[in-house]
């Protein structure tokens, strides 16, 4: 090795300040700016730059890449079980920031049939709100929370329905007491099917009917509630005691006034604990105190409500039973196999659940079952909706029959071959026979322009809409909402500013 002394200038070429033995291996020592044999004065050279990484080498530490650990931030505890769902399902019916609409009339027996009020918004009577809540008439995303108090539009379909209510209640000119009207309500998304049911319930409460509702048909077939087979049925039928119990609770809660005024008039052998002098409310209470007897109690309550006369020996305080309103929302869920399984693990068809079957059978024998008259309203849904081909065909058939097409004609819709159409569903929708009135298909469309104007004015008067509601503006919104689809109108009405303004470039 060459000497570390430069022969010409006698300067030290390499200046090892540390003993050689502990120098790091050659490959990582900093390279000198001059070759080891070179003799120019190293002292005069610029000091070599120290590389940070090399300086930082510490011998007792690992050489692997180290990353800073992320700080674990303290998070708020997740909401308790069920809290999120409660928040999602919460129904807010009033907004104190919204303006009180002056001069708004309430829905009443008089206003609901008043054709002059068509297109105006009628408030739901405040005392009735608890009843409507009890039957779960309100759904979370219907926009009730942006107004001071819940109110609905009196549209053409509502007026027609109100007249039916009046007729069946035995009032008005052409009274048809004891009649049963059965309707299946369809329509586009946002066309107001559920609110139509709500209006029906409100009218039912106004007319002192008994209102029985299934607010969400899906809950009965989604496998969420308990079920058990009924002994001795073939094919096996299943009962859902908890669902029945919940329905009894809803019905009692909402119809307490009516039910507490009616006394038991029939003999119910299956319910030994029932006293002869008890009211129907007490009868129903048996069911929701003990879910095991819920189904017999429901059957007993149904026979009581549909009785036209008391059993012999019990005529003492028999009162005529009121008509009944039965509503179901989201009926498509009942047209397929349920999430329940039979003992051999085959899926149970929804029509094998007796509770479901009980309601569905009203389509075919509603008049026979509801002897005191009433209304059966089954609505389809478009927001949470299974696509069921057979139901589509069945509704098409219903529409064709209503339009006057005979079922034997070639134009009559029928399921495609090999489409696997569900015969039970088709059977359910076949035309009724005998004295039984046919059930109807009611398709909800959009509001008319006048109705839309009344509806949008309600937004303006509630302080939500800050624009001049005039003919052209309403016409424009009417077209944009696909011909007055009320859900779309609501979206347009609640927008603070609906897109760009019309440019006044004309002339």
């Amino acid at each position, binding site marked *: 090795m060459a000497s570390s002394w430069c022969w010409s200038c006698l300067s030290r070429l390499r200046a090892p300040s540390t003993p050689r033995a502990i120098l790091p291996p050659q490959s990582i020592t900093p390279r000198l700016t001059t070759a080891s044999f070179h003799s120019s004065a190293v002292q005069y050279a610029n000091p070599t730059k120290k590389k940070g990484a090399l300086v930082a080498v510490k011998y007792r530490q690992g050489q692997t890449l180290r990353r800073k650990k992320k700080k674990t931030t303290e998070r708020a505890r997740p909401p308790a079980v069920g809290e999120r769902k409660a928040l999602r399902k919460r129904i807010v019916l009033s907004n104190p920031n919204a303006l009180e609409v002056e001069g708004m009339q309430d829905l009443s027996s008089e206003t609901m049939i008043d054709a002059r009020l068509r297109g105006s918004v009628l408030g739901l009577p405040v005392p009735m709100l608890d009843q409507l809540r009890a039957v779960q008439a309100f759904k979370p995303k219907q926009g009730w929370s942006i107004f001071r108090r819940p109110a609905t539009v009196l549209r053409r379909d509502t007026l027609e329905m109100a007249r039916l209510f009046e007729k069946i209640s035995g009032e008005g000119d052409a009274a048809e007491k004891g009649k049963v009207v059965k309707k299946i309500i369809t329509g586009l998304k946002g066309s107001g099917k559920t609110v139509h049911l709500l209006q029906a319930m409100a009218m039912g409460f106004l007319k002192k009917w008994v209102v029985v509702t299934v607010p969400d048909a899906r809950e009965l077939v989604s496998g969420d509630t308990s079920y058990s087979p009924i002994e001795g049925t073939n094919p096996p039928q299943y009962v859902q005691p908890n669902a029945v119990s919940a329905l009894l609770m809803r019905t009692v809660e909402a119809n307490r006034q009516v039910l507490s005024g009616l006394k038991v008039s029939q003999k119910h052998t299956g319910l030994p604990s029932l006293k002869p002098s008890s009211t129907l409310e007490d009868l129903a209470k048996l069911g929701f105190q003990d879910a095991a007897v819920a189904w017999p109690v429901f059957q007993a309550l149904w026979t009581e409500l549909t009785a036209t006369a008391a059993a012999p020996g019990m005529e003492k305080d028999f009162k005529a039973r009121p008509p009944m309103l039965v509503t179901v929302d989201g009926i498509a869920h009942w047209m397929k196999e349920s999430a329940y399984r039979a003992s051999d693990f085959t899926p149970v068809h929804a029509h094998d659940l007796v509770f479901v079957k009980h309601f569905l059978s009203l389509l075919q024998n509603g008049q026979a079952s509801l002897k005191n008259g009433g209304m059966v309203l089954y609505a389809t849904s478009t927001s949470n909706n299974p696509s069921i081909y057979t139901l589509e065909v069945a509704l098409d058939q219903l529409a064709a029959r209503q339009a006057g097409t005979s079922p034997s004609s070639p134009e009559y819709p029928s399921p495609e071959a090999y489409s696997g159409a569900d015969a039970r569903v088709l059977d359910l929708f076949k035309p009724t026979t005998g004295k039984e009135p046919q059930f109807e298909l009611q398709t909800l469309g959009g509001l008319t322009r006048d109705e839309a104007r009344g509806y949008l004015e309600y937004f303006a008067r509630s302080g939500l809409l800050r624009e001049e509601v005039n003919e052209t503006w309403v016409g424009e919104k009417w077209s944009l909402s696909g011909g007055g689809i009320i859900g779309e109108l609501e979206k347009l009405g609640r927008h603070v500013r609906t897109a760009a303004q019309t440019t006044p*470039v004309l002339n």
Partner: protein
Amino acid sequence: MARPTSNGLVQAFQALRLHSSSTSRPVTRCLARQTRTYATEVEGQPSALETQEQAPAAPEIDFTNFARRPARIVPASPSYFSGSPRFIDHVLQLEQLQAKYASLPTVAAGDAPRMAWFKLAQFRDYVGEPVPMKKYKSLVKILQRLNRIQPEMVPGEVRNTLEEFLRPGNPYAVQHVPRTVDENGRARAKGKRKESTAVVQLVEGEGEVLVNGKSLVEAFQRVHDRESALWALRCTQRLDKYNAWITVRGGGVTGQAEAITLAIGRALLLHEPALKPVLRKAGVITVDARRVERKKPGHVKARKMPTWVKR
């Protein structure tokens, strides 16, 4: 005389050989008496004509004819040795015509009959030479100058020459038929945007709209799309005065909505042509011709390059 068959050639050779071995015989005679024989056959008996005949003398040089037959082939066109002789011939011919008829009265360029001259590519095909764009433009200039001669006074020569340079099919002969509202009051118009094509039938009505047989709400869930679809009617405040029956195909939701915008704008113009400035200002008439740019090889998308990776 001698047919250029192999047989003839063989005979000729045999004749030569015979001639050298035996008594000299005139070749011409032999050829005159030519018969069909096999190559192996020996020529028959020597002919009786043994009289020596002189070969005919070359004809006299005709000096009058001599000038017409040059020693080398001369090209027909003087521009043969330029790069593009046919093109230059055309230019020369046209220039000659232009000079010849320069004195004829002309009309303004706008009044001259509209002519569809060859496009450059077509002209290149026509002459079969790679003509540069600039030179072709100069030729077209001469054509246009000749075309400006007052129509009544155009000489037949010029007319025929100009016709040679016209595109086949005469595109300007097809008269554009302006669309109108039909007898049922429907205005039909098409619009395109991105990959979508919309056909709109617009009639006077109440403001009802059907898109592919569905309501507007079903076809377009976003309010924005609905507004942009009906923008032409909305910005002219005609939303409640027309019904639209729309078929739209292809593309996505936004493209379909904007294709409808364009189609409704055009259909509305058929009903009310006076609305054009308003619609132009509203941006309904302007066609957005942009389409998706194609992906290129070596790129991840149309322009995006793969990430640079060391080694």
